[in-house]
Every structure is written in C-alpha cells, then in structure tokens.
C-alpha cells in the first residue's frame, strides 16, 4: 500500500510534482505520495485525483507557495508539494 506512485505512473507523460508547477499554470491532481496521515490531511483539503490546482503566489524566498484549489487558497511548503503529483493541463 506504499507503492501508490508506481501504480499511478501509467498514462501521462506530462506528470510532475506540484512543487514544479510554474506560476500561473493550472494542473490536475494525479496522486499523492508519502505517509497515510499526510495523505488523509491533503485529501480532506480537496487534493484528490482530478481536481484542478493553480499556483497563485510564492513566499519571499519561493517557499511556501499559495495555490487555488476548489475555489479557495491553500499554502503548502515545497517539501509537501513534492508529495503531490499533478499533470499539466
């Protein structure tokens, strides 16, 4: 149950982590990595497969960043964003 990443890397070649999403771009959530509790927390906040997420603002040193998801603003550290797989739209 910890190898979710492998099983999800199947169809898309434009897959990256949220941490790599360029400013102003929108992507679709493709999967989550990391431990169970972390994933649950992200899912509860709306980070589930298929939802659109866009990068809004970066903090002064580029980390953390603010994203828009489900119409609200969420700030996420780069270390956490690396655990969120997205595919560019």
């Amino acid at each position, binding site marked *: *149950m910890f190898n*979710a990443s492998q*099983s*999800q890397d*199947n169809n898309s070649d434009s897959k990256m982590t949220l941490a790599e999403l360029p400013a102003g771009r929108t992507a679709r959530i493709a*999967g*989550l990595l990391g431990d*169970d*509790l*972390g*994933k*649950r*927390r*992200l*899912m*509860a*906040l*709306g980070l*589930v*497969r*298929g*939802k659109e997420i866009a990068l809004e*603002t*970066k*903090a*002064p*040193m580029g*980390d*953390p960043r*603010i994203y828009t998801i*489900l*119409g*609200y*603003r*969420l*700030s*996420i*550290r780069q*270390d*956490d964003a690396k655990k969120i797989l997205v595919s560019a739209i």
Partner: protein
Amino acid sequence: MAGGKEITVGLIGNPNSGKTSLFNRLCHSKDPVGNYPRVTVAIRERTFDHAEWTFRLADLPGVYALTTQTPEESSARDYIHEERAQIWMNVLDAGNLERSLYLTSQLVEMGRRMVFVLNMIDEAEYKRLVIDAEALSRRLGGPVIKVNSITGQGLEALRAALVSMAQQERAPAPVIIDYDDHLAAAVTRVQQLIVDLHPDAMTPGQSRWLAIKLLEGDDALLRREGDHGHLLEMVGRERQDLAQEHGGECEMLFADARYAHVHTLMAATMVRAGGSVPHVDWTARLDALLLHRVLGLPLFIFILWLMFQTTFTLGKLPMGWIEAGVGWIKEGVGGLLPAGMVHDLVVNGVIAGVGGTIIFLPNIVILFFFMAIFSESGYLTRAAFLMDRLMHAFGLHGKALIPLVIGFGCNVPAVLATRTIESERARLIAILVNPFILCAARLPVFILFAGAFFSDRAASMVFLMYMISIMMSMFGSVLLNRILPRGMEESFIMELPPYRLPTVKSLTWHMWDNAMDFLNKIGGVILVGSMVLWFMKEFPKDITWSVDYAGQIEQMQKQPETPELKEAMSQLTRQRDQEALANSYLGRIARTVAPIFAPLELSWRDTVAILTGLMAKEVVVASYAVLYSEEREQAAESSSLRELLSKTMSPWVAFAFMVFTLLYTPCLATIAAIRREAGSWKWAGFSVGFSMVIAWSLAFLIVNVGRWLT
C-alpha cells in the same frame, strides 16, 4: 419561558467556518472569534432556550474530515464517536462549499438528526452562487438554513429548525453515497461480519457506517474494535485487495467517491448566476500588496512596529489623566482617614499598588485593538505564510507565528493556539518559546522603566524590548532544536481565508473584554498582592533593635534644636527605618534570595518585585509602587514613581532588570497552560528552569558589559 426539556447540539464544521460566531449569536455569548483556522481549540458548551426547549450547544474545534489526527481534531472526532450530542449542526462555509461538503459527506452517512447551516451566506452571494436550499435539504436528509451570523439573517429559521429537529424522535436514514462496485462490495462484506459480531446491537445504517470507517482506516475505531482480530484481519485484507485492484489506497478511493458525490450534489442544487461578475476581488488585491515578494516582509515588520509604537505613544495622554486622578483620590482618601495603620494600609498599600498599575489601562486597550485587527482580518495567516521560511531557519514552524503574535497580548491563549501545529515536536518548541514573547502584562514594567531611565528615548527602548523578546524566542527555538530529539518530518499546509473587515462591534468587544480582564486582575491579584506586600513590609513590629533608637530620639528632642541635631535625628530615623525593613518579613525573604541577584546588582526592592512577579507579571509594577510609596510621601514635592526609581540604579542595571523581567519564569497561569498543553509537569518545570537560566545569564552579561563600558 425557561426551557423544560434539554437537548445537546454539537456544532461541527471546517476550521474558520464561523462556528463560534454562530455559537455566540445563538447563546448571546462573547467567546473569542477570529479570521484564521482553528480559533477554537477546545470544546465549549453553553445553553440557550427556545420554545419549550433548552439547547445545550457544544462548540467543537473545526475539522476538515473525521479521519485526521491533530489533538483538537481528535477531541472533536471522539465527541462524535461517543455520540455526546443528540442533534448535529453542521456549519458550512457558503463561500467554500465544495470543501465544506466533504466533511458533510462523512457526517450524513452516520444517519443522525442534523441541521445544515450555510454560514456566511453573503460570501456565496458575493461569488454569485445561487443555492437551492430545498433541493440540498432533500439530498442531505435535514433542513438547510442560510445564515449570516454578522447580520443575524436566518437565525430565527435556524432556531425553528432546531426545535422541530428536537421534537422529531427518529433519526433520518443515512445517506447512501455511491461508491464504485468494488468498494461497495467490500463495504457490504465487512458490514456482514460486523453484524455477525455485534448481533442486534446496531441498525443497518450504523453497521454500514462502521464498515466504511474501518475500511477508511479510522484509527480510533480500529482501536475500539481491537478485540475482534478476525474483523481487523478481514478489513486489512480488503484494504489491500482494493488498493491493488485500483492502484491507489483505500482511503483515496473513498475520498474520490466522496468528492464525486459532492460534485453531483453541487451540480444538482446550485448554479452560478450568469453574466460577468462585476465585483472586485479584494482578497487578491490585498494579497498582491501584502504578500509581495519584496514588500511583504518589510510591511509585516512595519505593521508590528506601528502596533508597538502606537501602543506606547497614544497611551501616554490618557495615562497622564488617570495618574492625576489617582493622585487626587490618594490625597482625598489620605486626608479623610486618621493617621495610623489603616491609613497607611489604604494609602501606601492599596492605592499605591492599584493606582500604580491602573495607569497602564490605556496601553493595554490600544494593544488589544491591534490584536483584534490582526486576528479578525485574516492577516495572521498571511504573516505565517510570509515568515514560514525564515522561522524554519530558526527551527520554528511557520504556523507558530500565530501563537507568537497572540502572545503579544497574553501567553496563555497563545500556548493554547499552538494546537494548530500538527507535529508534536514543532508544537512543543512553539509552546516553550512563547513565554519569551512580551505580553501585555509585562508592558507596564517596560513603560515605567523606559520612562524612568531612558526618558529621552523611551519609545525606542520599549520597541527594543519587543525586538529582544522576538529574538530570544528565535534563539530559544534554536537551542531547543539542539536539545530535543528529532521527530518525524513536519509539514506546512494552511488555508488562507479571504480578508474580512473586522466589525466595529467585535473590535469594541475585544478591547472591552481585555480591559475588563485587566481591571479584574487589578481588583484581584494586584489588590490582594499590594495589601500582603504592605503587611510583609510593616511586620513584625517587635524587633530587637541594635541601637535604642526610641531613647536616643527622645533625648535629642529634649535638646534645643540646631541644624546639626536635626541632621543627626533624621539620619537616626533613616537608620531605624532601614533596620525595620531589613527585619520585616519582606526584608528577611529578600535577604535569603539576595545572593542570587547580587551579581546583577539588584537591590532588595528589585528582588521583591521579581518575586511578586512570579504570580502575575502585572504585580511587578504594583510592587514598586507599594515599596516606594512612603518615600513618595516624604519627598518634598510630589515626585512620581518614575523619578524616584530613576535614582536607584544605573541605566545598565535598569536595562539588565528589564531583560530579566522579560525573560524570567512565566507567570502561574502560563505555567499551568504549558503543563496542560505540553502534557506533563516535566515540561512546565523545564520551562521555568530554562527561562530562569536564560534570563539570569543575559542580565549578568548586560551588567558586566555596562560596567566595562562605563
């Protein structure tokens, strides 16, 4: 119309969905609210009467889902699992419906009596979202009420809905969420086993719900079913099978299904009004400025500076008025009372102590005005976002900024506010460094000392104290990071609410509430403390004198008066007073601990002030006022405490004293809060020792640098 039947209503909803505002509105109470997630970190209960019912409302900490694990989330989840309420009021943020409904999708599966509140309905209208409450109500299985808890719109309908819900004996059937076939089949299989294990104990709805929760991996329920090894084994197997078949964990499958359900729900019950949206997105505009990559941080520092500066300078004027008033009362009362013990107690004990403290009321009120703006506008989360990286460098979590800023008001709620930090270790550090933050109770000490010793740059001195306070909390964090064993990785995920304009009503309330709090302290600990201090200073009276002062003075009085004799007499009187003081209870205590403070070049009076400050830091100023009250009377012209104080130590020693007072042992209320939040006396004790050592060392350093420089 006192309520006859009592029924408990649990308020549940996402963080920052306005549960507490609604709670206050319904119960006519004034519990603290703010525009940042998780203002409420403990369960609070209050009642209100309506029709023939008494509703006991329980305000639960906000949760995003029922399967997460921060301390306050668990307390809310346990409340639900233990079924401590008969009716549930699910509060949804109407401006943030999709995410709010995710929690709802978990709640409606339980099949309870529920009322749904679309709170902050104005924000949905602002976003041009038209919601069909009727349709939504049919699909959720409970009344849906649109509410604006600021204006009070919808509250009457909500009360009526609660009454009809209370009268309705039976709970509705649970809502069935459309899971995909594999998931649904697994749920049915697990449910069957649960029914076999707990025959007749549960309704079909309950057993289905438990099956779903177990498959979702709810830790608390898995523990509860711990003795059914067979069941747990089956759940584990099903989870594994599902994960393999679908390429994703079981939880993810459930979350996907729930969000799909929410999506269908929204599509069927709400539409976005057509046409272009003419409104201005103020949040985006403000963020463009306040979160600017270059200007953001300087602006935050500037706002803090403005707060400290205004608190000091704007407070000066009314402070003078109150000071004059106190002086006037002192004269009046002093004149009325006959000379003697009672006179001294009232004038030199009570009026000196209380009057010496109450003059700082304006500063406190102004400070809390700023604190209210901070917490209600939504800016605090932005500040946490801006500072996260910098704080991370010092080993503090970005979210620790919120408790740190709250700490400028009072450390007690600040320590509680650390609950929003998910990682235990990061939270512990945030708790332990919080007492270094200069709270409103310590501010009077610095205003008094800055005025006495650094009168030409008093405002900068107070600001410097704030800077030292911030730096020391950073330094403390670096130190603690070295000491504490490294734990698991921590994360920083935080919702940024839209900016909201603080209402005049809530700002006024916030200031009023804190002013009353300060006045209550004056009427309590400071009043009693001043009296006790006076007694300890005056007693015991039966001292065996080293010199027969009384006899000598009597003899001198018989002789003809000459300037030399007068001088000798006053010297003798001073000597007697000194000896009396040294032998008083206060003098004895001060002498015992004096060796600790001797290297800091502090007098016995300073020592006493420090000791009394252990109770509450407000008492430090009151102590000085009592300790110097007689001298003030004896002085030829009415000199202020400031002037008297300024002659007692060098500026460097005064500075050392200020730093010591800033950092030493947290007050009793804070120590209690630390014990509660850190979970053991060990950490409370550690905090006491840790801050004492740091305070002493730094003060010692300052005194010696001062000696070397002058």
